[in-house]
């Protein structure tokens, strides 16, 4: 249905039942939102609440946290059912899949299906099978991704320092990482740069082994890599501090795809401000709750602008200051961890 027809129908509905339209604009009771987080409150939730407050939306938010334990999800789902909320909010891929289920595998017994939902901080909503496509979720949920497009990441990398060859270290066991590596390789073929890949070796249990991380970095440097690219990769994130220390020691600049990897000591990267992600999520919640839009028709989106943090101590040790123009928009991080 096109927008004009929709407007006309909405107008007709408003005329036929003015009380209804009024009620939707100003809810008669307080809105209730059930929110589920993975590792406690983050700045995403700060942004989410700040947006609601700024727009004058009064909502009661009931918080649930699984403390990194997916085993608690069934219990949380049961509690949400009892709360009868107007909206469900889920943080991260694990929580979102656990509460809402993949679009092609919804089990009404395990998943919340009868309440509109917004998810946030899901790196790859399509890859995770939360939605079949970003443009039209097709079910009663929508949400926000925090990943910058790969092309924008590589552009930022090249504008920091031009390169002809880059290295990637990743866990072959993680789908997100494999997808990112494939994307980087495709871009390399198109734009004419070499991509040197070094997957973590697997131990006897088939889990990635991080003890060899330093050696992988050295290998990449010797093979001629001018940048080390760090894809979204949970295992990589856990071993990143040692790995990045080695890279900086041997003069290899590193580019991070997530904020956690920047905090672990990468030279720079493109990341979403968590607060902005939270605000954007609240903006979508507003469209559902106040404007009465069907979540299925609200596209899943990522931010249109990202921040570019630069670890100044790393830049100084590498002797690689950001290009002058970058001082205009980079978020400069210094020893104290604060932004300048």
């Amino acid at each position, binding site marked *: 249905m096109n927008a004009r027809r929709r407007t006309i129908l909405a107008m007709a509905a408003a005329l036929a039942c003015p009380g209804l339209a009024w009620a939707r604009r100003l809810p008669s009771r307080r809105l209730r939102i059930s929110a589920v987080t993975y590792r406690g409150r983050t700045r995403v939730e700060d942004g989410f609440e700040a947006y609601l407050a700024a727009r004058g939306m009064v909502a009661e938010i009931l918080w649930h946290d699984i403390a990194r334990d997916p085993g608690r999800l069934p219990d949380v789902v049961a509690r949400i059912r009892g709360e009868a909320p107007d909206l469900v909010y889920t943080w991260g891929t694990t929580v979102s899949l656990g509460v809402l289920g993949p679009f092609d595998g919804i089990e009404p017994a395990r998943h919340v299906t009868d309440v509109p939902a917004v998810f946030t901080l899901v790196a790859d909503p399509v890859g995770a099978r939360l939605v079949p496509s970003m443009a039209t979720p097709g079910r009663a949920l929508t949400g926000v991704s925090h990943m910058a497009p790969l092309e924008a990441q590589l552009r930022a990398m090249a504008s920091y320092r031009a390169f002809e060859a880059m290295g990637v270290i990743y866990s072959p066991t993680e789908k997100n990482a494999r997808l990112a590596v494939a994307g980087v390789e495709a871009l390399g073929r198109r734009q004419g740069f070499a991509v040197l890949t070094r997957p973590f070796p697997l131990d006897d249990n088939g889990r990635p082994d991080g003890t060899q991380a330093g050696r992988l970095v050295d290998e990449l440097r010797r093979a001629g890599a001018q940048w080390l690219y760090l894809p979204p990769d949970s295992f990589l994130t856990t071993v990143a501090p040692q790995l990045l220390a080695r890279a900086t020691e041997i003069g290899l600049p590193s580019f991070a795809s997530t904020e956690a990897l920047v905090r672990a000591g990468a030279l720079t990267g493109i990341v979403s401000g968590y607060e*902005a992600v939270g605000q*954007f999520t609240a903006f979508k919640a507003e469209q559902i709750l106040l404007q009465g839009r069907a979540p299925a028709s609200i596209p899943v989106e990522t931010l249109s602008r990202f921040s570019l943090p630069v670890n100044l101590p790393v830049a100084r040790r590498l002797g690689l200051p*950001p*290009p002058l123009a970058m001082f*205009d928009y980079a978020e400069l991080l210094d020893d104290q961890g604060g932004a300048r």
Partner: protein
Amino acid sequence: MRRLLLVALMVCLFGALMSTLLTRAKLEQGMSRIIEARVVSAARELARSVERAQGMGLELAALDTLPALLARHREAESLVDHIDVFGDDGRVLASSSPARVGGTVSAEARLAASRAGDQPWSALGDGGRVAGVSLRTGYGLTIGHFGLHYSARELATAMASADRRLGVSAALDFGIAAVASLVAVGWLTRRRRGAGRAPARWSMAAACLLPLVLAMAAFGAQSQRAFSEQLVPQAVHKAASLGRGLAGLIERAHDAGFALAALHGVDRAMRELRRHHPELAYVAAVDGDGVVVFGDGAIPVDLDDRGTAGRAVVPLVDQDRRHGALVLGIDPDFVRALIIDMRLDVAVVLLVALVLAAELVRHVGTTARGSPDAGLMRIRAPLFTFILAEELTRPLLPAYVGRLAGGEGGAVEPLVVGLPIALFMLIVALGQPAMGRWSERVGRRRALLAGALIGAVGFAGSALAQGFADLLLWRALCAVGYAVVFAAAQGHVLDQAGPAGRTRGFAVFVGAIMAATVCGPSIGGILADQLGQRPTFAVSAALCLLALVPMGALPVGNGHRGEGAGVRFRDLVGLLANRRFAVLALFAAIPAKVLLVGVLFYLVPLYVAELGHGQAAAGRLIMLYGLLMVVLVPLAARRGEDFPRRLGLVAGGLGLSGAGVLAASAMPDEAGLLALVGLLGLGQALAISAQSALVGEMCRDDIAEHGVDAVYGAYRLLERLGNVAGPLVAAALLSSAGFGGAFAALGAAALVCALVCGWVLGRGQASIPAMRGVA
């Protein structure tokens, strides 16, 4: 004698007024651009510091350092009166002038800000101008707009001093030129009279023009100096403002622990700056000892970091200690680049002055009592003036229609833009024969007066039009006026010249129209760019009224039988049954007119705007077409002396036109446009006389049966229907295939028509004797 002197004065006055107007407008434009760039640069700096201070939260008002920040930035740029922060609704949320908080900014500023996206914007504010940038969240929501209000004070002061200089120069140069013209004209007249001859027209025109040319050259040189004096200091201010932006980044890097010499990408940032601001000859960073560390452009060897004329110096300071400086040099020649396209406009003015002088001298010379052609020639001046009014509007009409139909910034169907042109052509095509007959009945003079009055109302209405619907009505009135004047003037010429002087009469008629075709579009484009579209329509209305004066002096003129027999439908059908005539009409005459009106009057003005040029550029192109016709038509007419040559000229000319239009689709730039107009003009000029002659040749039997007027009347009617179809066909193609596609389709169709016409008529030629034998 007195009248000739008056002509000399008028031409001089025209040249002086137009040159001064153009120069002044250009200076003002250059100056306000520089001033706006200064303010925009300040706005960007402000947005950056707010973004840093606030870290992209939601509410700007929550930033308690905001008022201090606004006040500090206002202090830093002397141009700025106050700085507002306002929301999408235009409400002022914070301001460097606390009294403004809670009020609203101008509607123009609100609109410009909401449309600008990430780009800086500028608009009219209350009591001055506003420029600014918008701050948005990472997901596109507006946090706030920064509006920097700056008054016209600086511009007004600079313009006042420029006005004094330009005024004195213009008065001196053109005053001397006027005196020289008067002396020369007086001397020529007396000498000729002494020799018992009438003064030669061209020497008279030269006597009027030569001093004018010299004066314009002198004025041009002086005004360039005035430009430099006014613009270079402004450019230095702007360079300082740009330099402060760059210095801010260097200081930030310095704070982060990177010394100036260790920085990366400094020259790249400088190159970028110079690319966006071509008036910067060089940008250099020098260290504390004055040694150049980074630089881009032609840095002088003896560069020092003291402020001298033509350069801006911005110190690099760290905790009150100066550790270097940025030096930004202004290219003194940037002024020249700025006025290059003004030179073209001045050349156009000169050319128009030449035509005008020739027209006026002719008018004075031939309408004097006792002159043999006096009655015939008297139509020339009013006809020229009236047609000039319509021609003025050619380069601006499509854009004007689009603006009125689309409102502010809305997209308009190309067909809507083409409609007023098509309606105009339709009324002229169908109305002319009837108007001819009517003018015969009421008298040519009364008809002319009525036509010019209707035209004046039409143009005045167009100037004041509020929307598409009433513009359509006003344009219809213009068309009625045009049809009446055209037909009555034609009738007047025929009345006065008589059957024997018919050719001579038509030469006078066509000459006046061609002269207006050369002068009108170019001057109209200049006026539209400098004064605006509505005032240009007002000028057209004034010209119509001006034409009333010489019209009133014409003989009443009725009782003669003119061309106006009218075209009967039956004749038209009968003519079209003549297969060869039908081929000529359908595959040559109509396509040629579709190309002329559809491409030149409709697509070209829109395309010129699409390429980012002003209406003056469109006017110059349409003038180029007129010039080609004036020069080439007489030459081509001499070449077509038998059937094969005529056919060759017709088919070849149409083919050339088509090739020109195709060239524009192949080369989507100015060169392609020039090729289009050049080849179109050449092609039409080659074909026009030969085509008319072919009609006579191929329709001998029809002429014998219906009379020459009926045959030619039908032929002209078909041509004019081509005029009607032109903008409609072009618009339909434009909306479905874009400019490239429209050009390609029209060009290819013209080539096919040329081939069909040449082949069918050329083949038929062999069988003519046989057909005659049968007949």
